[in-house]
């Protein structure tokens, strides 16, 4: 087995959008993928196993990452993309320019780009797609709320006008919000996908298989594989078995953590990549006892994150102490703050006058959450806190009961959205955290004009959040990619955008 551990992404991500622009980064050619010398002439097919099942194909109205991580970069494309190392790269925009005041982004578009149905991609599509964000009901269109209007300069030039400078506009444009649509195709987004990407969507058999074929008319370099199919497995073990028995060529975000070692042989390659996920236990500050910050700190100190990590992911991943992940440019390791110290925890709880606390812990019925919750329950019983676990079906029941009705004392979930920390600035979020100071830090970050300023503001916000303990950030899960030998060029990292399979080569 070869384990290729990608370099920490922090440095790469720190190359900011503004720096890129001022260096004239728009001139950079589209990213070359490794091993695509003989592109477009293989008749190989690639089957990849996934865990999260897309309910349909419309990520503009259906939540969850499953849909766009399959379609984005493969079928749909945006103006810019996130490279596997986390840098922002040109895609449908050849280059771009940002005005001095940070309010105008002008993009030069690729020419000769067509949608899969044959219609041409022009500046009109950019205008249509970005203005349609108003109609989105899922996947955080408000990330681009600073976007005021889209101006079609000419057929291949477009200018975005912002109402206020927003540091992260280009970053959000790399995600689902930046996907380009054809106006004639938006009526059946849930069942069809018409994009400009390297793979043409063929069919989706609900919860079983999504099939694609190579786009023979692709404007860029054609993908090496002729056929791509994404297969969905509800449980990690079935997925691992499928890989072992040749049912799939690779697993992305493999979750059969205990079996990773057993793929240590010549037949398979294991890569440990990064993800954006934050597995967080939220403490409901409206609950008795939990309204006291001392109690929340005591609970944080009672939890043995090493055990949680061992139980949930067999130890893969990074223990966290704050709501940022190692790939965030503003990441700093807070895992030493209010860290595991059961005696101090018990003392703190006693000092606060809560020595017979009993709490309800609602959890999504997913293996990682069940494993983590049982360890936490055991940990908390050691300091005399009685925890009752209530397992709720995910997504429907958990979202309704825990997230919408906030009917919990403790709850846990893996937030896979990019940079979801900003939700601590939203008092209406189910986290129920409201700190004027934190909101000010977030505002500073948004209006920042360079990396240092942005990171400093985000870090200041992080420090305050960590001190208030609205939640206990357990760990950042890894993105484990296991492939059979002969399959190369798979994306290593889960960047919270699409998994790009156009650079994958298959031999044998």
């Amino acid at each position, binding site marked *: 087995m070869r384990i290729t551990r990608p370099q920490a992404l922090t440095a790469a991500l720190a190359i900011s959008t503004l720096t890129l622009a001022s260096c004239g980064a728009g001139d950079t050619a589209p990213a070359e993928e490794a091993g695509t010398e003989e592109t477009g002439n293989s008749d190989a097919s690639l089957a990849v196993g996934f865990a999260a099942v897309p309910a349909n194909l419309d990520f503009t109205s259906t939540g969850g990452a499953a849909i766009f991580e399959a379609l984005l970069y493969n079928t749909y494309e945006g103006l810019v993309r996130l490279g596997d190392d986390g840098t922002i790269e040109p895609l449908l925009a050849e280059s771009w320019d940002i005005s001095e005041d940070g309010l105008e982004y002008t993009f030069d578009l690729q020419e000769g780009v067509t949608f899969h149905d044959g219609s041409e991609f022009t500046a009109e599509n950019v205008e249509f797609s970005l203005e349609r964000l108003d109609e989105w009901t899922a996947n955080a269109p408000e990330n681009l709320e600073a976007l005021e209007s889209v101006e079609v300069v000419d057929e291949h030039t477009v200018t975005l006008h912002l109402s206020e400078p927003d540091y992260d506009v280009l970053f959000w444009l790399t995600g689902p919000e930046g996907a380009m649509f054809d106006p004639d195709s938006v009526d059946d987004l849930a069942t069809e996908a018409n994009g400009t990407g390297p793979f043409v969507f063929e069919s989706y058999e609900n919860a079983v298989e999504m099939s694609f074929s190579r786009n023979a008319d692709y404007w860029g370099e054609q993908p090496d594989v002729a056929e791509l199919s994404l297969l969905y497995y509800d*449980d990690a073990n079935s997925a691992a078995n499928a890989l072992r028995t040749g049912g799939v060529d690779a697993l992305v975000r493999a979750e059969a953590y205990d079996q990773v070692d057993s793929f240590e042989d010549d037949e398979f390659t294991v890569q440990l990549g990064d993800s954006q996920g934050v597995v967080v236990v939220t403490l409901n500050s409206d609950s008795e006892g939990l309204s006291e910050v001392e109690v929340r700190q005591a609970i944080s100190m009672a939890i043995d994150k090493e055990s949680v990590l061992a139980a949930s992911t067999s130890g893969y991943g990074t223990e966290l102490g704050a709501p940022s992940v190692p790939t965030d440019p503003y990441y700093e390791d807070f895992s030493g703050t209010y860290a595991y110290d059961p005696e101090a925890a018990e003392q703190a709880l006693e000092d606060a006058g809560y020595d017979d606390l009993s709490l309800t812990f609602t959890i999504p019925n997913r293996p990682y959450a069940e494993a983590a919750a049982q360890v936490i329950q055991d940990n908390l019983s050691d300091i005399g806190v009685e925890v009752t676990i209530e397992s709720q079906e995910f997504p429907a029941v958990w979202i309704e009961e825990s997230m919408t009705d906030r009917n919990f004392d403790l709850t846990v979930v893996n937030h896979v959205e990019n940079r979801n920390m900003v939700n601590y600035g939203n008092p209406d979020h189910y986290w129920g955290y409201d700190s004027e100071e934190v909101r000010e830090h977030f505002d500073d970050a948004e209006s920042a004009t360079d990396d240092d300023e942005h990171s400093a503001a985000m870090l200041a916000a992080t420090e305050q959040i960590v001190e208030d303990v609205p939640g206990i950030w357990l760990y950042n899960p890894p993105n484990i990619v296991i492939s059979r030998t002969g399959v190369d060029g798979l994306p290593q990292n889960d960047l919270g955008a699409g998994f790009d399979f156009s650079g994958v080569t298959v031999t044998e």
Partner: protein
Amino acid sequence: MALMIVRRLGVFLLTVWVASLVVFFLLSVLPGDPARAQLGLDATEDQVQALREQLGVDRPLPVQYMEWVTGFFTGDMGISYASRAPVAPQVLDALQVSLLLVAGGILVALVIALPLGLLAAVRQNKPDGTLFSAVSQLGISVPNFLAGLLLIGVFAVTLSWFPSGGWAPPAAGADFLRHIALPALALGLVNGAILARYTRAAVLEVMREDFMRTARAKGMKPGTALLRHGLRNAMVPLITVTSIEFANLIIGAVVIETVFVVPGLGSNLVRAVGNRDLIMVQSIVMCVVVLVLLVNLLVDLLRPVIDPRLRSAT
């Protein structure tokens, strides 16, 4: 005879109608908002309300019932809340998979049960007969998903003879057989053990019947008598049991479907429940219920054809 068939059909239709009422109103109390479940973590209350209206889940229940029930029987089951695609093709696909899987399971079960049960009955008080009984007794005690897990471990992961899961349609020929083999075996082994016990009981019962005694008294060997007269009579209870097993298997296969990643009715139902895809849940449940009632009807109609005793009685 014809009158009986008409009467049975009438009762069947009435039963189906009552069942449709039960299914619809039982499921309309399902907690969890389908609109909220779909929109995910970030949606506003206005967006959720708009989707509720779009899905039609804000209308009075009787209106929704009429639309659903007429749709169901005209093949238009509506649009799935989750996949936004028509429900009918999805349910029919899953139904086809389930029927094939269950048929495969019953076939395996019969292949095991008939000889095993027959031998256990004929050699009742001899060591091998007892051994057959013990084997079937043990077989019933093993959860079928455990059998499935073990089959995967041995025949897929270790020996690589069969795929560990997934499905191929019958049109795929050999690939279909490779995919259905292990799940059908897992279903069939345990149910074969159950059927074997009933076969044994049915055969023993037949052996006690007067006509068998007469046949033997006339000098026929027990084996010959059994084959000539007995099996036909033993078939009646067996067909009834198989039909009841069918009802249990069609949804009981859900665990096997989960283990083998087979997209049948059961796994679709569990997923639809998780998504609060109410219209899908209703359609699948209704489909199962109609199917079970239909099989019962068929058995009722067939029984006099097979059983000479019943025929003379009517």
